[in-house]
């Protein structure tokens, strides 16, 4: 087993009463793109700052390429950061910004210039090399900041919400560009965001942080289909479709577990943890996985909202309120009585408290 490229070993840090990292344990292999996802204040930026050497953990160890970086000055750590506000030096032009890290490493003028033009080419900004920073748009600044970080060939690239300053359409385009480029270059990347779509579309694995704790780290699909905790389920799954139930039997060979719930007996997929017969569990059903039968049933349609491609339908009944999504235009309208069902395998069990 090769040494992990980047490793957090039980890293904790707190500010007064605020816990910004609690026993973080994380291994990242070379070339991996990790998205760190979590609500505001969950410790995402703190994680990056510890990696960049701006902050020192209270306990635990952080290793890059097997060597501890705890206590090293920021300029001694082989990371480069793309900051949320880009932090481009305003009194330098684009090329000088990109050359700065190389200059600090003692590169000659010609080598610097060649390398700067090379990375600017990677982000399609070579034509802007002599532009002053003030004359750049947000998207262009973002590219220059990425190029500046890549220029020094860092072992680990750190990005702190690098797209949050851009508007939606540009953001969607740049997301794809960045993730393609970084995968192509095989750069190990830690990418902080609080936009779940961004995390899920860009990353190889997504780490979900909550109050300084790592709730789960998994590939995007696993995260959606098997959230480890109800926080993850709630954070990723949208609202209202987490409910409780009781395990009513053993898992079969396919990993399906019978569960007794307010919506009747359903067959749910086994979650991340183990389950025992009779155990109280949470059950997650994604809004698009419910089946709605347009027959007079126990559930009443409270609202139908059409949001572009899907209809979002709120229903209420004996087991509570749920959100259901249907592709296309729904024929249902407020006040209709419908039947609500959970197809086999549409639900997933969430057994918390492991670790």
């Amino acid at each position, binding site marked *: 087993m090769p040494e992990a490229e980047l490793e957090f070993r039980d890293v904790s840090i707190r500010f007064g009463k605020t816990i910004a990292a609690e026993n973080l344990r994380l291994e990242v292999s070379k070339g991996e793109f990790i998205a760190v996802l979590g609500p505001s204040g969950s410790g995402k930026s703190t994680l990056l700052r510890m990696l*960049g*050497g*701006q902050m020192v953990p209270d306990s635990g160890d952080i290793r890059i390429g097997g060597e501890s970086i705890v206590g090293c*000055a*920021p*300029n001694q750590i082989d*990371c*480069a*950061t793309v*900051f*949320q*506000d880009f*932090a*481009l*030096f*305003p*009194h330098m032009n684009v090329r000088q910004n990109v050359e*700065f*890290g190389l200059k*600090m*490493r003692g590169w000659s003028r010609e080598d610097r210039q060649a390398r700067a033009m090379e990375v600017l080419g990677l982000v399609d900004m070579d034509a802007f090399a002599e532009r*002053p*920073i*003030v004359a750049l748009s947000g998207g262009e600044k973002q590219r220059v900041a990425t190029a*500046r970080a890549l220029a*020094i060939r860092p072992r680990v690239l750190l990005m702190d919400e690098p797209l949050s300053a851009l508007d939606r359409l540009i953001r969607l385009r740049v997301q794809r560009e960045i993730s393609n480029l970084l995968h192509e270059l095989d750069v190990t990347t830690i990418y902080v965001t609080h936009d779940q779509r961004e995390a899920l579309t860009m990353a190889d694995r997504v780490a979900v942080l909550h109050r300084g704790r790592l709730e789960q780290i998994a590939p995007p699909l696993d995260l959606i289909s098997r959230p480890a905790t109800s926080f993850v389920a709630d954070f990723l799954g949208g609202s209202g479709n987490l409910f409780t139930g009781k395990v009513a039997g053993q898992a079969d060979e396919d990993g399906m577990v019978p569960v007794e719930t307010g919506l009747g007996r359903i067959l749910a997929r086994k979650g991340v943890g183990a389950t025992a017969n009779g155990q109280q569990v949470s059950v997650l059903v994604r809004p698009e996985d419910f089946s709605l039968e347009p027959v007079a049933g126990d559930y009443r349609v409270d609202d139908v909202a059409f949001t572009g491609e899907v209809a979002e339908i709120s229903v209420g009944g004996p087991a509570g309120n749920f959100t259901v999504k249907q592709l296309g235009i729904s024929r249902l309208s407020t006040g209709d009585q419908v039947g609500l069902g959970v197809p086999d395998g549409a639900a997933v069990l969430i057994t918390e408290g492991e670790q």
Partner: protein
Amino acid sequence: MMPRQRGERIGDRLLLTMLVAALFFSLAPLLVLAVFSVNDFPYYSLPLKGFTLDWYDQLFKDEQIASGLTNSLEIGILVAVVASVLGTAFGIGGAMVTRRWGKVVFAAGLLPLVTPALVLAIGSQILFVESGIPLSKLTVVIAQATAFTPFVVLMVTARLGNFQWSLLHAARDLGAGPFRAFQVAMLPVIRPGIISGFLLAFLMSFNDFILGFFTGRGFFTLPSLIYSMQRVGISPMLLAYATVIAVLTLILALTARRVLVSIAQRRGGNVA
């Protein structure tokens, strides 16, 4: 273009009138000085007798004035250097303070700004005398630097009002040591503030009479020399002196402004 409103035009005219009045009242005394400084007669009376540059000639040949000038320049430059170094350090420190008690302490440090010069002067004198420090040029420098540093602090903190602190982190992140990071990320932003602070401290030292009078012994600065000379009557030579100083100050202020603007333009920033 929008048609201009009548009320607006009246407002403009009022503003212009006030501006002209203000200029007149602040420049009138200087004009009077300038006019009498070239009058060929040792007393002030109209009509003017004739044009002469004799008073200027006397001024530039006067040895006392020359030594006063040397002292004033020496002290002024020292004070400006000390005040801009300290003021820059305090300004940066102050901008970094986020806690409330820290802000209070910082504000207390700016008190010399609003303390009457006479109070500062007497206070400094008592301090020096009571602690056995002989009054000299050095004590003047110390007293003036204390009094004028806050002006530099203000100039520097104004530049740091919306400073992007991430620039410092970015520089460190890319491999710069702490000093290099400051030089690259912060210095260009605060440089205009430091320069104007330096010039301001120099001008205030150069024109200071009160602090120099109370905390210096055994030498004259230009202002204290003038003060002692005018006790035996104001010679037109002093008017020539005042005119020269006024013109020099004006030139300095204008060039300082131009230097700042050009620095800002080269850096792609703004002067505000």
